[in-house]
């Protein structure tokens, strides 16, 4: 990993970031900001899932569960122990990371497809558990009255984020930028390369001295931690969380963002998330037909560009069994 030189690529990123930061000043439409904030939150999730699915090649269909665990961890700490957001986000990340790895451990011994189903099952179980443990989690009504983040501004006293869009926009934007930076560092490091090696050829990776199981757990833990952070932010922003926000559909959407962006690509994850995050809003005019068009988009895009926007075509990601083209 070369030290972070000011490459042209990095220049573009910084410019993009500055432009994004200037946006609320140029167009303070709270609705637009809110949509973008949500899309950026998705981007954080996509970055996390990208570590698991994109870099390491593990098929994960239950990512929303870690989002939920992060959200509920902060929510519960806020409601029952009065923890402020900036403190609560840490255990949120840690607990989600723990679950990420813990789930991973037994599941990693099975074949790839089965890992997908196990993660799907786990995602559903988490949701059902949160729905049914009324006493602790508020059941289907969820948790209400979670504290918003508060920031002490010099000269202005304590600023409560409240329900205005702008502070959340900046919070999510900066968090995303930091996480993107970390992911980029990781992907170019010994750890990140080892993850990709596992994806490309697990057997060769093991024989090259890479502790495959440990690294798969690490990937799931890191991915979990990132989802946990996103969850805490989500809970703090909404003030209210219900189990229904963390369903399979969300897991699938994040997965689609990672795949469409290109497996393993940081850029791809962010742009894929922005695209798919904003799309339902853009399609709002079509109301009933939204999911229909969304589903169709997924099918068509993956068909036209199998490697995603920024993916490479050289990965050996076990394609379905081939057949001689001459067969009928």
């Amino acid at each position, binding site marked *: 990993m070369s030290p972070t030189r000011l490459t042209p690529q990095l220049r573009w990123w910084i410019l993009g970031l500055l432009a994004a930061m200037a946006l609320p000043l140029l167009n303070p439409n709270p609705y637009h900001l809110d949509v973008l904030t949500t899309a950026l939150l998705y981007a954080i999730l996509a970055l996390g899932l990208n570590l698991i699915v994109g870099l390491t090649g593990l098929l994960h269909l239950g990512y929303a569960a870690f989002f939920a665990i992060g959200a509920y961890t902060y929510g519960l700490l806020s409601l029952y122990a009065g923890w402020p957001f900036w403190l609560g986000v840490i255990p949120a990340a840690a607990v989600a990371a723990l679950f990420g790895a813990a789930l991973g451990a037994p599941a990693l011994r099975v074949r790839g497809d089965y890992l997908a189903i196990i993660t799907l099952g786990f995602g559903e179980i988490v949701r059902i558990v949160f729905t049914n443990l009324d006493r602790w989690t508020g059941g289907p009504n969820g948790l209400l009255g979670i504290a918003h983040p508060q920031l002490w501004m010099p000269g202005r006293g304590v600023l409560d984020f409240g329900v205005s869009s702008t502070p959340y926009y900046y919070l999510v934007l900066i968090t995303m930028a930091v996480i993107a930076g970390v992911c980029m560092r990781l992907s170019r490091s010994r750890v990140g390369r080892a993850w990709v090696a596992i994806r490309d050829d697990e057997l060769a990776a093991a024989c090259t001295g890479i502790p495959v199981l440990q690294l798969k757990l690490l990937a799931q833990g890191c991915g979990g931690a990132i989802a946990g952070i996103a969850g805490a932010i989500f809970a703090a922003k909404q003030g209210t969380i219900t189990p229904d926000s963390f369903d399979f559909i969300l897991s699938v959407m994040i997965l689609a963002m990672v795949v469409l962006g290109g497996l393993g690509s940081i850029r791809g994850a962010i742009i894929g998330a922005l695209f798919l995050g904003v799309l339902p809003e853009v399609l709002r005019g079509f109301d009933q*037909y939204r999911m229909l068009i969304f589903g169709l988009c997924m099918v068509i895009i993956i068909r036209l560009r199998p490697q995603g926007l920024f993916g490479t075509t050289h990965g050996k990601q076990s394609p379905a069994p081939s057949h001689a083209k001459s067969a*009928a």
Partner: protein
Amino acid sequence: MTSLQLFTQQLANGLTLGAIYALIALGYSMIYGVIQLINFAHGEVVMVGAYVSLTLILMLMGLGLPWWVLVIVCGLGAMGGCALLGLAMERFAYRPVRQAPRLNALITAIGLSFFFQNALMVGFGATDRQFPSVVPPVRWEIGGISVTAIQLIVWLGSAALMVGLQLLVMSTKLGKAMRATSQDLTACALLGIPVNRIIAVTFAIGSGLGAMGGLLFGLYYGTINFHDGYLIGLKAFTAAVLGGIGNIPGAMVGGLLLGLLEGLAAGYLSSQWKNVIAFLILIVMLLFKPRGLLGERVAERA
């Protein structure tokens, strides 16, 4: 009702549910067997079958046909329609991505699932739809347990189809080709077996069976909703894994077993947790006995 009678009643109910699961599970199992794809859209195909048979029943109800003719005709109609749907899905959505990484096929399946579910909502409305009671509400009391005519239809219908499928797979040339293709697709292709056609037929049969499952589901529960496909699909997939994915008798056994377990859970625990049962079984199976009860039948991957 004595506790034994209660138990046996739950058993009977569970078997009915299980028969439906079995029919749907077969679709998952067969398709996974040939191209190692978890066809997420299968649950929606089942619902399409349910809605199509509902439409046909409503259309033909007034013709004064005997009810069993009505059911059979509508069933065949739904099966045929869904078989075509399955063929279309395979040809236009799945075949183009067969060479791509497996994740792409999964995304395609999920996209199709969204598409069909939404299409059903747009076409038939978001509210529950009632299945008209075309089957006479007869029940028989056998040893204190009641069995309805509908249950009997479910048992007989699914049994007939499953037996038919076994015969097809075991005794016909097509069946042999299907079994060979699910063992080693590349070898079959090199041997001149028209694998594309075999895969297409597999999709057609699997979807047809799923459609029948949808019809029976509609008859048994009386109402259907566009959203049912997701849960049913997941459970049927659990059943397929339970029996051993790719294994046809396995899907049948898995379906019956899951239905039984779910019926018992609903009877003795609360019905809230019965969905959790299905997922727990799934996870436990995959962790401890991923090959299923009867062993999986999937091509060895390099």
